């Protein structure tokens, strides 16, 4: 039986939520023609499939209800059905602009649950790739924010820089993008000298390229006017609504998980945590540019300090042995079989570990019943909580400001929808 229905009309519950929202905007010359506008899931400026249903009076936004779920792929349910090792490629696709960062977060959380620790060289390599991922993510954020506001050249320039980072990852592990490079107990293979040399070359030439970008738009009247004073959020509101990452630091709270709960070897590296107090879109943009500079500084120190040694832990019950040993020795073959088929079997209990993702705080909460796959896995994604603040930020602004605000918060829907 066929039924003709308009399947993606706005659901009545959303209309109800939109009309119920408190709005204390006072407009002098009320046009008396409110309308409901759908900035639908397919839109060039919404950074993925985010749907914003706006209630407008003329061009001023009175209220906004974001709707997520267009990219909900069922990660948490799948994680309950596969072992900890099998889920590593899935973590790449969470925040797909900085995939290495998610890999590092997952293996750190599993290692905390299992009670093992990777050797020092692996930890330094993980720090290096996490900071490269941060630079890649912020470059795309800056580029697409500038493109949304109108400066198209910046997008091509920052993508050109990002291509160099992708070349580094290509040499390091074979895949440009969505590379599942980290393993439980270390990293998949050692960093080749060509890769390290290329990283050094990239860092050395990065400073002048980012300065070119800054010279073009930092004092541009149109760019500054479109972003200055737009989407302001105060420090208390930011902490209350759950902002983390660059969005929080642009509102004045100097909170960085690398300093607050240090992981890997961040307490031995000297870096600053840039903070701005204005809390508007321009501050978030400046903060991201500054953070890329700090990341370059961190990578330089990591390259100097990287120790020699092995890159994967030698713990047979929990870490996959090397392929060459599997083919030649009986013990390693048995361990490989057990780990691949039954999993690493961490002890019964639960644990939560979070790292500083380029978007905010990415955390994994595991409940383990002693089996090879988790009983429950929760992904605390920063983008979902960041999008929660959009209704607060767009009240009273114009429609074109909505585009700038969404761009400056920088959500990634793969993470927000899980």
């Amino acid at each position: 039986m066929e039924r003709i229905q308009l399947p993606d009309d706005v659901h009545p519950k959303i209309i109800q939520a939109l009309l119920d929202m408190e709005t204390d905007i006072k407009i002098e010359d009320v046009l008396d023609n409110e309308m409901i506008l759908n900035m639908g899931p397919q839109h060039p400026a919404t950074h993925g499939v985010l749907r914003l249903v706006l209630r407008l009076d003329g061009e001023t936004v009175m209220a906004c209800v974001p709707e997520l779920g267009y990219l909900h792929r069922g990660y948490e349910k799948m994680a309950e059905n596969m072992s900890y090792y099998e889920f590593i490629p899935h973590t790449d696709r969470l925040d797909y602009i900085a995939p290495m960062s998610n890999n590092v977060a997952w293996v750190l959380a599993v290692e905390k649950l299992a009670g093992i620790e990777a050797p020092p060289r692996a930890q330094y390599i993980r720090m290096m790739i996490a900071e490269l991922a941060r630079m890649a993510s912020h470059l795309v954020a800056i580029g697409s924010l500038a493109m949304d506001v109108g400066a198209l050249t910046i997008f091509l320039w920052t993508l050109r820089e990002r291509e160099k980072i992708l070349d580094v990852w290509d040499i390091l592990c074979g895949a440009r993008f969505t590379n599942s490079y980290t393993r439980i107990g270390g990293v998949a293979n050692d960093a080749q000298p060509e890769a390290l040399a290329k990283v050094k070359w990239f860092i050395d030439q990065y400073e002048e390229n980012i300065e070119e970008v800054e010279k073009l738009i930092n004092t541009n009247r149109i760019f500054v006017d479109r972003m200055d004073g737009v989407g302001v959020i105060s420090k208390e509101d930011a902490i209350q609504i759950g902002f983390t990452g660059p969005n929080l630091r642009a509102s004045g709270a100097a909170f960085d998980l690398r300093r607050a709960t240090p992981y890997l070897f961040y307490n031995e590296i000297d870096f600053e945590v840039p903070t701005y107090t204005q809390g508007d879109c321009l501050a978030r943009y400046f903060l991201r540019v500054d953070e890329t500079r700090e990341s370059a500084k961190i990578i330089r120190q990591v390259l100097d300090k990287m120790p020699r040694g092995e890159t994967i832990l030698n713990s047979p019950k929990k870490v996959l042995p090397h392929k060459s040993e599997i083919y030649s020795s009986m013990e390693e073959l048995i361990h490989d079989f057990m780990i691949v088929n039954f999993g690493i079997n961490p002890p019964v209990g639960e644990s939560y570990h979070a790292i500083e993702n380029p978007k905010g705080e990415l955390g994994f909460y595991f409940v383990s019943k002693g089996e090879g796959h988790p009983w429950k896995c929760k992904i605390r994604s920063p983008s979902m909580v960041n999008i929660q603040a959009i209704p607060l930020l767009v009240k009273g602004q114009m429609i074109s400001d909505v585009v700038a605000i969404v761009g400056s918060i920088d959500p990634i829907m793969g993470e927000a929808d899980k």
Partner: protein
Amino acid sequence: MNFKEIIPQKLKEKFPELDIEVSDFRNDLTLKFDKKFIRDVSFFLKEDEELQFNFCEDVTAIDWAVRKNRFTVVYHIFSMKHNFRLRLKCDVDESDLTIDTVSSVWKTANWLERETYDMYGVKFNNHPDLRRMYMPEEFEYHPLRKDFPLMGIPGSLSLPRK
């Protein structure tokens, strides 16, 4: 500051009839108590001068797939002043699948509770806007429950005609 002793002590002073189970695994402090205290305990933990747990990181639920106390609602909260993380757990039974909301204490919990409702079916009392988060509104099931199959139930979601 040794939070592992201070927090249960302070909670005992403020709420004498509260019965807390304290556990500490992998350096994470966990407190488990009855669900009717959750709003008062959260308010106290946030407003207390010494503790100041002003940041709510995560709200989720666990489905144990047993007959009694099938679900457990889990809260992760963080104190930016002391850089300390705390976990609160409350059991919810299937016969009375409701719990008080903490979105009046921390606004972050608004969408996180909506997600828990969507995935597990736990209803939150006095929540300002309890709708589904990820699945379409017409969907009748709760996906993350242990009795929902991984490939879904055929016919529960619609596709357009080719």
